[in-house]
């Protein structure tokens, strides 16, 4: 039998159901790989007992002749933004170092209810702020991919869900949870040659997920392929009365309705996404993607999203504004880090705790957010940004009159080397240029691998869909997946 850890979510599920292997065998095989892959720094905490416990329960249930749960036999990696009961949850920050929640996030609870187990907590950009994983307090994740030039320069796995992308790409887990605020699922998926979907805002409960920017944060799966994403998303999604922004809708049967037949579908290509200085290889991949869509039977239409260029500035006002308020609770009073210098008062404690507890990028965003919300600047920044957000929503509404999904590149470049952009926050923020507009409007969007660049690094294509129409997004992704036939994998060096 082939290596069990090469199997994806569907393969593991089906293999377990057919009796090809036990859930324990799968959990043990993945746990072993996790414990040997420390060089990637993808996992902050390893939880083999959780994975084994869920696996044993699945095995017992099968022995008792019970109908297997949807994710029985599937162990997963969990981004450290999700609160996990009894397991340290830090958002890769110093300020929450050692914090162990006595509660379980709704998304992870949904996964455990579906039979999945947890291999461990995945490294990430601190508080999900970053596009390279370099802002983690616990050291950056290193991408399993390397350039062909022999330089062996450590590459960014993307961010903020960089632990998730690296772990799936290195086959340390068949799938992982991610969260996406401005591209944090899609960009790392693109950088590492895997698939990832951010569903419509409100599909996945935010309860128990550490907040970055509440109006944008949305959980989603990252996995080897589109089908695996559909399976995982079905388990993660669902109405949650504990989240006031959760959508009170049944979860569609995305997997059962997967189809790569694009006949009768119109695929929009937004002209404004042809940004300056985009590498020719990405242009070329985009053209290929268009051809694949056509080949799958879709009609291609050019559409205009005229306010696209304002999306990134608006995002970098709204997200920091919300973050500056969301992160106020980390004050050293109730949990997490407390720095209380001798003879210090309350204000000193706040200052010392937060100065020590937050990394530079988090501080930068808290400062930006505090500034744009302050008296005298609020209208010029925050109110204006919300107006832009409304205009961008209208752009998409108008586009949907002409097409069913949009096809764009996921990121303006392949994975860059660690350290290459960390000195220039603007260059780093530009990574989000294609992913941010759909985030601002809460639309479902996914990245699927399309090919490799000259250096042998993966490039991704993004599909954006109408609100609640994850099915069309997944179907278009599947159509690309079948035609791109992306089989490349990083060679194990770790």
């Amino acid at each position, binding site marked *: 039998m082939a290596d069990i850890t090469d199997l994806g979510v569907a393969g593991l599920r089906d293999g377990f159901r057919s009796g090809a292997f036990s859930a324990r065998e799968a959990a043990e095989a993945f746990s072993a790989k996790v414990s040997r892959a420390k060089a990637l720094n993808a996992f902050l905490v390893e939880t083999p007992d959780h994975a084994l416990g869920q696996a044993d329960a699945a095995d017992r249930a099968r022995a008792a002749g019970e109908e297997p749960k949807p994710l029985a036999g599937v162990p997963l990696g969990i981004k450290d933004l999700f609160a996990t009961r009894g397991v340290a949850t830090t958002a890769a920050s110093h300020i929450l170092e050692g914090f162990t929640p006595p509660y379980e996030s709704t998304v992870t609870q949904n996964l455990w209810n579906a039979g999945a187990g947890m291999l461990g907590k995945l490294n990430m950009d601190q508080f999900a702020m970053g596009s390279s994983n370099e802002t983690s307090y616990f050291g950056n994740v290193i991408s399993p991919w390397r350039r062909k030039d022999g330089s062996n320069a450590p590459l960014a796995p993307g961010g903020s869900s960089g632990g998730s992308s690296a772990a799936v790409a290195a086959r340390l887990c068949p799938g992982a949870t991610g969260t996406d605020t401005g591209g944090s699922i899609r960009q790392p998926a693109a950088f590492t040659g895997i698939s990832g979907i951010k569903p419509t805002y409100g599909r996945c409960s935010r309860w128990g997920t550490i907040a970055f920017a509440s109006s944008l944060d949305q959980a989603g799966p990252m996995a080897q392929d589109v089908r695996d994403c559909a399976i995982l998303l079905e388990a993660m999604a669902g109405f949650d009365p504990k989240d006031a922004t959760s959508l009170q809708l049944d979860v569609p049967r995305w997997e059962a309705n997967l189809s790569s037949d694009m006949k009768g579908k119109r695929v929009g290509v937004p002209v404004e996404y042809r940004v300056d200085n985009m590498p020719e290889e990405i242009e070329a991949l985009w053209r290929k993607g268009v051809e694949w869509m056509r080949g799958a039977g879709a009609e291609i239409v050019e559409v205009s999203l005229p306010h696209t260029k304002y999306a990134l500035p608006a995002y970098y006002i709204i997200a920091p504004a919300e973050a500056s308020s969301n992160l106020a609770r980390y004050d050293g009073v109730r949990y997490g880090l407390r720095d209380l210098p001798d003879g210090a008062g309350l204000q000193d404690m706040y200052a010392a705790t937060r100065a020590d507890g937050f990394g530079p990028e988090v501080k930068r965003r808290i400062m930006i957010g*505090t500034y744009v919300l302050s008296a005298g600047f609020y209208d010029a920044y925050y109110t204006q940004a919300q107006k832009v957000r409304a205009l961008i929503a209208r752009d998409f509404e108008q586009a949907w009159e002409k097409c069913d999904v949009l096809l764009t590149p996921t990121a303006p470049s392949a994975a860059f080397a660690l350290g290459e952009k960390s000195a220039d926050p603007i260059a780093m923020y530009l990574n989000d240029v294609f992913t941010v507009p759909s985030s601002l409007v809460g639309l479902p969007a996914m990245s699927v691998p399309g090919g490799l660049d000259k250096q042998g690094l993966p490039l991704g294509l993004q599909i954006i869909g109408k609100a609640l129409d994850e099915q069309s997004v997944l179907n278009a992704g599947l159509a690309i997946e079948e035609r791109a036939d992306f089989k490349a994998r990083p060679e194990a060096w770790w």
Partner: protein
Amino acid sequence: MSDYRIQGATGEWEVVIGLEVHAQVTSNAKLFSGAATAFGAEPNSQVSLVDAAMPGMLPVPNKECIRQAVRTGMALEAQINRWSRFDRKNYFYADLPQGYQISQLYHPLVGEGAIEVAVDEKNPDATKTIGVERIHVEQDAGKLMHDQHPTRSYVDLNRSGVALMEIVSRPDMRSPAEAGAYLRKLRNVLRYVGSCDGNMEEGSMRADVNVSVRRPGEPFGTRTETKNVNSVRFVMQAIEHEASRQVDVLEGGGQIVQETRLFNPDTGTTRSMRSKEDAHDYRYFPDPDLLPLELDDAFLEECRASLPELPDAKRRRYEAAGVSPYNAGVLTAEVETARWFDALLEAGSDAKQASNWVAAELFGALNRLGRSIEDCPVSPAQAAELLKLVADGTLSGSLAKQVFEVMLETGDDAGKIVEERGLKQTSDTGAIEAEIAKVIAANADKVAEYRSGKDKLFGFFVGQTMKAMGGKANPGVVNELLKKALG
């Protein structure tokens, strides 16, 4: 118009007052979490993960709190906003776990309304309208405890997240008395509606007092805000002190600084807490964890249908039924009294007779016993029976008093007491005539005086006859027979 004026060294000053009342919403659960809200519980025993602002926790609005605020708005005949929104007010303090308070700055739940306030104690129909600018809903903070440890402060989060209504008046009040009347009336309406228990001692109602002074007829002066005053008396004291302080400053050539002040109940004075310069920048913005609050017709209908009869309407109903305006005002001033009185009316008592009896006899007795009407030893039904015995002539006024005393003591019904103790008044004309004859015979001189025009002596003969009858004679019959006998 109030003619309250402060006599300064340089002339008269008028005081302008606006009140922001924080009223704790009566609800078993907090505004955005399921945690309980009972007063006086062990510190930190009523705290959910949401109230402690644990990572990843989210607020979910409690419909009952919204409902109570809407009902309150309706009781003040205020504009109910079908679309409102919650905003975050950001500041750091150890009693504020989230680092922000969820409140409503830009789009409050309730808009413009009004309260009719009695400005003359003697005449409840003499009223002044005080505008209510808005009512918004917000979270309370926790409480710091500085007396638990020599060098540390402790935090109790029991109140953290409890729902408050902030009821903001227009600057329409012109005297401490008007402010007091406004507060009492507001508290009364809240209690009628059941949306706040109005208990200022337990902190479930407190006021921020905005005061400025001006020369009569001139534009508003600069105001100060005295925070968290927790009784009607203190509010009146704070206004008095603050207004005269401002007059002193202005007459001394100084200027009033817009600032936040604190009231000291021990001295009845206010002192500066922080000035506008070091005021917080709260960085208000819409709470992205919450969707806008949209109210539908069915919900509003239910809120309206559940409103009880309010004090003004009740007062007018009592007056229409023959109750004097003064008594009507007294009977509706507290919801518990009104409820008791309504039960008395429902048991069949005549409104006028009953109101006089409640105002004189019942209140007198309760005062004497140091009891409130909620634990009155006599039920409305028992009282109704007593009043019926008076109305049908079975008991005279003085006999009724005796019976009532026994009722208070024993809790027995009036009929039983009358029966057992033989306290029934008599209209037996034969017996009364016999006693009258004896009285006339024994007081021949007084009879002569009376007959020569000294009418006042009639009362003497009534008294003598009643005494002879052991107080049980029907006074009407005695009067009638005496008049006949004395010619």
